[in-house]
């Protein structure tokens, strides 16, 4: 049986797979992006159990449950078929996301709120672990030889487009209401969760109309499907060595490049550079919009020149470019330099009074603008001690002054879009060809299981650890603000060496076996 589809058929397959996978990524991301509001609503720091559940929701979902989901659904996909398995993951993901948006806050139902949210978040992680392998396998098993890289690269756009849609919807909702209305118990932060159910219903409808993978059907009709995909994947030395090679020679490096370009960059702009929320988000949105077509470019190119060197070139470029790029972010948002080198203009000032243990605390926020259009807010705090006439001029201590909501001028803004775009292009280099690479590495009867586990360990664990190891390194070596980058640089370099030495650049023409 040929594994190629008619041209119109393959596009239906790609659409059905990509839309669903995009929605799953969207669902998974919005939780992380709204983590601050979610933690206020469900995981108050004052309750130690809730704080513990919060930690589990953030870390266990990505690090443990995603790889576990890869095993559970990978096995199902190799036993009962790709179509029904990735339909199941979609229902699970969509349902969990919608329900997170429906759980009343901690104030209303107490500890049941964080427990329910934790459970639903773990279900999200489980579903995500099963989705990608199914979608990539499904498209690859329909794609004609010589076009597999190009067709599967459409699936590869979904993780980044899911991020784009999540960023866009949250920004849109936030722009149309006040911060108080957004952060309220039943406020605007819930809308992105509710919107998910509409997207999922459409996607389920599309997927239900699709046929099962022709290669899987052929195996099934011949009675050649695996009876025990987990054993055949991980206890068969010939296959297990390929699982290890996929993980350490490709997916591990891809995970850190993927995470650093898309998430660490945004977090760095917001926390280390103190860039204004809207500006940092729109920088990401523009960079993603201009960068996403390159998934298709590199997927297509990998059909011509092989997958290996495109992916490894992306990793190597990350090794050499990350520190210079992030260093530019820091130096261009250094407001001390702005004050010393540019004319400053006072814009406005707000003061608020609060009380802390009987003392009066005055917080003053003054907005300044430079002659070339950059802006920042200087926050100072003065305390009037209770029962005395002493005012502690904390603001006179420069170390206690906080600079927030920086807005860079238009020239720097476009430069930042360009720099983030470069990092997104690196993501497209490592991520664009990888679905085809993984599919070609494993036999049809255990493909779903064998490719899902290394993918989710690479992406979820190695990628997901970027912020934690970054924090660990910056705490250990506080003098260097870029020290956190040594983790993705080190992992990408290690993966480059393993990939360069052990992988071959062969394109498998036949994935029917």
């Amino acid at each position, binding site marked *: 049986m040929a594994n190629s589809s008619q041209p119109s058929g393959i596009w239906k397959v790609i659409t059905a797979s990509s839309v669903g996978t995009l929605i799953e990524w969207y669902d998974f991301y919005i939780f992380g992006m709204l983590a601050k509001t979610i933690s206020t609503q469900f995981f108050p720091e004052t309750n130690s159990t809730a704080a513990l559940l919060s930690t589990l929701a953030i870390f266990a979902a990505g690090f443990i449950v995603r790889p576990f989901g890869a095993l559970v659904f990978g096995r199902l996909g190799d036993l009962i078929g790709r179509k029904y398995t990735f339909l199941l993951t979609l229902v699970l993901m969509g349902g969990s996301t919608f329900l997170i948006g429906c759980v009343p806050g901690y104030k209303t139902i107490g500890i049941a709120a964080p427990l329910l949210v934790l459970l639903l978040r773990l279900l999200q992680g489980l579903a995500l672990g099963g989705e990608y392998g199914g979608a990539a396998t499904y498209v690859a098993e329909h794609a004609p030889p010589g076009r597999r890289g190009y067709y599967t690269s459409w699936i590869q756009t979904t993780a980044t487009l899911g991020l784009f849609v999540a960023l866009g919807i949250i920004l849109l909702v936030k722009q149309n209401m006040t911060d108080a209305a957004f952060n309220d118990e039943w406020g605007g932060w819930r809308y992105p969760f509710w919107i998910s159910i509409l997207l999922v219903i459409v996607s389920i409808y599309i997927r239900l109309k699709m046929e099962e993978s022709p290669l899987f059907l052929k195996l099934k009709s011949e009675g050649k499907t695996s009876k025990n995909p987990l054993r055949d994947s991980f206890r068969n030395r010939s296959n297990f060595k390929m699982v290890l090679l996929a993980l350490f020679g490709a997916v591990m490096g891809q995970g850190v490049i993927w995470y650093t370009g898309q998430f660490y960059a945004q977090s760095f702009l917001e926390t280390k550079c103190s860039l204004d929320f809207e500006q940092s988000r729109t920088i990401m949105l523009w960079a993603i919009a201009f960068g996403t077509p390159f998934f298709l470019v590199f997927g297509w190119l990998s059909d011509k020149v092989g997958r290996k060197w495109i992916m490894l070139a992306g990793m190597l470029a990350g090794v050499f470019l990350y520190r210079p790029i992030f260093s530019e972010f820091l130096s261009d948002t250094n407001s001390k330099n702005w004050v010393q080198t540019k004319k400053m203009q006072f814009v406005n000032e707000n003061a608020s009074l609060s009380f802390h243990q009987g003392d009066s605390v005055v917080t003053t926020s003054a907005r300044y603008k430079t002659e070339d259009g950059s802006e920042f807010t200087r926050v100072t705090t003065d305390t009037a001690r209770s029962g005395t006439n002493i005012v502690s001029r904390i603001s006179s201590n420069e170390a206690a002054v906080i600079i927030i909501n920086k807005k860079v001028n238009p020239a720097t803004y476009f430069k930042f879009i360009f720099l983030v775009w470069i990092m997104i292009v690196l993501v497209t280099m490592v991520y664009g060809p990888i679905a085809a690479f993984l599919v070609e590495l494993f036999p049809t*009867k255990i493909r779903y299981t064998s490719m899902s586990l290394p993918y989710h360990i690479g992406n979820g664990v190695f990628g997901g650890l970027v912020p934690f190891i970054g924090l660990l390194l910056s*705490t250990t070596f506080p003098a260097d603000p870029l020290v956190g980058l040594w983790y993705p640089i080190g992992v990408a370099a290690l993966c480059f060496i393993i990939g360069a030495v052990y*992988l071959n650049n062969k394109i498998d023409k036949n994935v029917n076996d």
Partner: protein
Amino acid sequence: MNNLKKILGLVWMVVAPLVIITLVLGAITYIDSNGKKDINNPIIWIIIISIFTPIAIGLMIFGWYAFKDDYQKLPDSSIEITN
């Protein structure tokens, strides 16, 4: 190239336990019940060390396979894997 693959196999077998030792030392250094950062939180360290231990064992096995010449020639077709 084949010799390089073999020699590097030994390197991966050494690197794997070093990663775990580094993580355990990190946990011992930074776990602090009074700390507010993620690196002070024992639960996170338990999760990370639990998930990284099998990965490091995987790297050791990868090194062992490389040392035993399993990667001298990669399979040309899936039949070589399934048989």
